[in-house]
C-alpha cells in the first residue's frame, strides 16, 4: 500500500489525523467565536469582569427561605447574595418537589397495578392527562386556580386555631426560634441517628451469625423520637415558637397577617411545588409500574413456596429487584424536576433564573458572566446526579458472563 494512501486506509493513522483535525477545528471555532464576542462587546462599551457581584442590588425579593437565610436587605445586599438566594430557593423547591413527587409517584404506580378498577382508573387518567399537558400550562393553572380559591389578604382560612392560616398572600406557619441549648438538641439528634444506624448494622451482623432477628428499625426509630424528646425536655424546651399574628381591625393595609411574625410560604412557591410534584409524579408512576412489572412472577411464587409472607416477600425480594430497574430513570426524573423549576420565572417565584438571569441581568447587563454562573449551578447538579447514577448502576448491575 502506498504511503499516501495509508493516510486514509490505515485505521490508526486515519484516526489520529481525524482527531487532530477535530481539535484544530474546535480551537479555530472557539477562537472565532471569542473574537467576535470581544469585538461586539467592545462596540457596546461593555467589558468582561465579575466585579458587578459586589454592587448592591436595588430591588426587593419576595420573602422565601433564601431571603431569610441570606438576610436580604435592599440597601446592603449585593448581587452575589442574589445569586445565593436564587440557588437556595431553587434547591428548596426542587428538594421538596422530589420528596412529594416520589411519594405520590410510588403511590400512583402501585395504584395502577391494583385490581380495583376505580383506583386503577383514577391512576391511569391522572397519569395520561398530566403527562400530555405542558408543564407551563399546568403551572399557570395551579397558580391562578390557587389564587382564586384563597380568601383575600384581609381574610384567612384558619388551619389551626391561632397557629397556622392561609390566604392569598401565603401560608402562615409558626416559626421555630432557636434559643440557647438548641445546638445541644441538634447534636443529640445527630447522635441518636448515628446510634440507630450502628444498631442496624449490628443487628444485621448478628442475624448473619446467629440467625436471630432484632427489630432494629423500630428500636432505632423509637430511640430517635423518644431520645430527642427527652433531651428537648431536659434542656428546658430550647425552641421557641413565633406564631403568625392576624389582625382584622385597623387601617386596611395593616389588616391581615403581620410581617415579621411566624413563617410565610408565598403562594408562588406553593403553585410551583404543586405543579412540579404532580407533573413529575405522573412520570414516576410509570417508572415504578414498569419496575414492579419487570420482576418476574416466578420470584413471588418461589418466595411464597419458601413460606415467606407477602409483606416480607415484598420487602426483601420484590422491591430490591424492582429498585434496580426503577432507580436510573428515577434519578433522571429528579434531574428534570430540578431543571423544570426554572419555569418559575413565569410566575414570579424568585428562584435562580428569575432573579439572577432575569431581574439582575436586566440591571447589570453582563450576559456572558451571569449566564455562565447560572449554568454552572445546573451543570454541577446534573453531573453529580449522573455520577451517582453511574455508581449505582455499576453496583447493582447484573454481571454478564
Amino acid at each position, binding site marked *: 500500500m502506498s504511503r499516501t494512501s495509508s493516510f486514509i486506509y490505515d485505521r490508526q493513522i486515519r484516526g489520529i489525523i481525524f482527531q487532530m483535525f477535530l481539535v484544530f477545528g474546535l480551537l479555530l471555532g472557539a477562537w472565532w467565536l471569542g473574537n467576535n464576542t470581544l469585538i461586539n462587546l467592545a462596540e457596546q462599551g*461593555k467589558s468582561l469582569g465579575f466585579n458587578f457581584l459586589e454592587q448592591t442590588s436595588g430591588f426587593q425579593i419576595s420573602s422565601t427561605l433564601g431571603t431569610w437565610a441570606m438576610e436580604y436587605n435592599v440597601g446592603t445586599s449585593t448581587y452575589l447574595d442574589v445569586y445565593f438566594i436564587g440557588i437556595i430557593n431553587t434547591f428548596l423547591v426542587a428538594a421538596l418537589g422530589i420528596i412529594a413527587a416520589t411519594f405520590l409517584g410510588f403511590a400512583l404506580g402501585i395504584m395502577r397495578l391494583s385490581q380495583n378498577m376505580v383506583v386503577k382508573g383514577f391512576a391511569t387518567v391522572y397519569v395520561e392527562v398530566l403527562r400530555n399537558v405542558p408543564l407551563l400550562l399546568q403551572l399557570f393553572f395551579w397558580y*391562578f386556580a390557587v389564587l*382564586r380559591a384563597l380568601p383575600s389578604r384581609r381574610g384567612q382560612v384558619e388551619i389551626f386555631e391561632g397557629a397556622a392560616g392561609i390566604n392569598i398572600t401565603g401560608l402562615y406557619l409558626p416559626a421555630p426560634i432557636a434559643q440557647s441549648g438548641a445546638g445541644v438538641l441538634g447534636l443529640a439528634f445527630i447522635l441518636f441517628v448515628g446510634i440507630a444506624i450502628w444498631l442496624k448494622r449490628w443487628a444485621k451482623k448478628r442475624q448473619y451469625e446467629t440467625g436471630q432477628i432484632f427489630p432494629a428499625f423500630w428500636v432505632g426509630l423509637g430511640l430517635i423520637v423518644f431520645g430527642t424528646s427527652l433531651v428537648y425536655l431536659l434542656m428546658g424546651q430550647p425552641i421557641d415558637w413565633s406564631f403568625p399574628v392576624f389582625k382584622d381591625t385597623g387601617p386596611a393595609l395593616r389588616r391581615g397577617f403581620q*410581617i415579621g411574625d411566624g413563617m410565610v410560604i408565598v403562594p408562588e412557591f406553593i403553585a410551583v411545588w404543586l405543579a412540579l410534584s404532580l407533573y413529575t409524579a405522573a412520570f414516576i408512576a410509570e417508572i415504578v409500574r414498569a419496575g414492579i412489572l419487570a420482576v418476574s412472577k416466578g420470584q413471588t411464587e418461589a418466595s411464597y413456596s419458601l413460606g415467606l409472607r407477602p409483606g416480607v416477600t415484598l420487602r426483601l425480594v420484590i422491591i430490591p429487584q424492582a429498585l434496580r430497574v426503577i432507580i436510573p430513570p428515577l434519578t433522571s426524573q429528579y434531574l428534570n424536576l430540578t431543571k423544570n423549576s426554572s419555569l418559575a420565572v413565569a410566575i414570579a417565584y424568585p428562584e435562580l433564573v428569575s432573579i439572577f438571569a432575569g431581574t439582575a441581568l436586566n440591571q447589570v447587563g453582563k450576559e456572558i458572566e451571569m449566564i455562565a454562573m447560572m449554568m454552572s449551578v445546573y451543570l454541577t447538579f446534573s453531573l453529580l446526579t449522573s455520577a451517582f447514577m453511574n455508581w449505582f448502576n455499576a453496583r447493582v448491575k447484573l454481571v454478564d458472563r
Partner: protein
Amino acid sequence: MKKLSLIVAGVAALTAASAVQAGTLEDVRAKGFIQCGVSQGLPGFSNPDDSGNWTGLDVDMCRAVAAAVFGDASAVKYSPLSAKQRFTALSSGEIDILSRNTTWTMTRDTQLGLNFAGVNYYDGQGMMVPTALGVSAATELDGANICTNTGTTTELNITDFFRANGMSFNLVAFEKADEVVAAYDAGRCDVYTTDRSGLAAQRGKLTNPDAHVVLPEIISKEPLGPVVRQGDDVWFNIVRWSLNAMINAEEMGITSDNVNKLTFNEKTPAEARFIGTEGTFGKELGLADDWAYQIISQVGNYGESYEAHVGPNTPLKLDRGVNALWSQGGILYAAPIR
C-alpha cells in the same frame, strides 16, 4: 447529505449582512423599509390587531420616519420585543429604531451605546389600588404587596420610593405584563405599579375597571422616546427632526386635513419652510424636501396622533397634562425648523 434541511436553507437565506455602524439611512434605503422595534402589545402605544396591523403612538413615530425617508408611511416592519431584548436588538443592528415606550435614563444613554432622539411622551410611574382599600395617597401604603413587571426601571423606582418614605412592602415581579394584571386582579397584591400610561392601558383588562383608582402620586420621571444607535448622526437627526416636525405642526396648526391646502394657497414663511417650498432643510437631512409634508399628510401631527391613540376619547382616557404644547400649559417644546 440527505440531511441538509431547513436549517441550512434558513441560515443561507435569513443571514442578512447589514453594516451596524454609520449608514443606517443607506441600509434602510437599500432594504426599502424601516425595521421598528415595538412592544409585545401595549394598547395605545404599540398594539397589533388580529391580522397583525400595528397601531399606537410609538408606531406613529416609526411611520413618521418612514414617511420622511420613503414618502410612504407603510414602509415599516415591526419587531415585538420584550424588555430584556430591546437594547441588544437595537445595538446588534436587528432593528433600525426602537420605539417602545423606553425611558430615557443616563445609564441607558451612556452605557449601552445608544442615543435617545427625543421624547414623545412624558410619563411618570404611578400606582393603582382597589377603591375598596380606602387609600387616597401613596404614603398610606406601608406594608403593601406590590405587583409589577420585571426587567424595567419600575422595580427600582418603587423600591426607592418606599425606602425614602420609610415604608415596608413586598414585591411580586412577573415576566409578562398580562400576568401582572391577572395577579393584581385576583387580589394577590394591593398595588399595581407601572408607568401611568401603562396603568391606563391595562385597566381595560381588569374584570371591573371602575373598582380601581390610580393614586395621584407620580414617583418618578419617565420621559419615553425613540432610541437609535450611537455613531450614526445622520439617522439620529432624521428621527429627532421627524418628531420635532410633528410637534411643530401642531404648534402651527397644520393637520393632515389642511396640509394639502398649504401647498397651493397662501402660507406664512414658517409654513413654507415646513412643507419644503422654501429652503433646503430636507436636503440637509439627506431626505427629499417634502419630508415634513409627507409626515403630516400620512401620519398627522402630534396632537392628532395623541387623540387617536391615547387621548380622552380612547379607552385609555389620558388627558394631555404635561404632554400638551408649551403654549398650552404642557412641556412639549420642539426646536424651530429654520
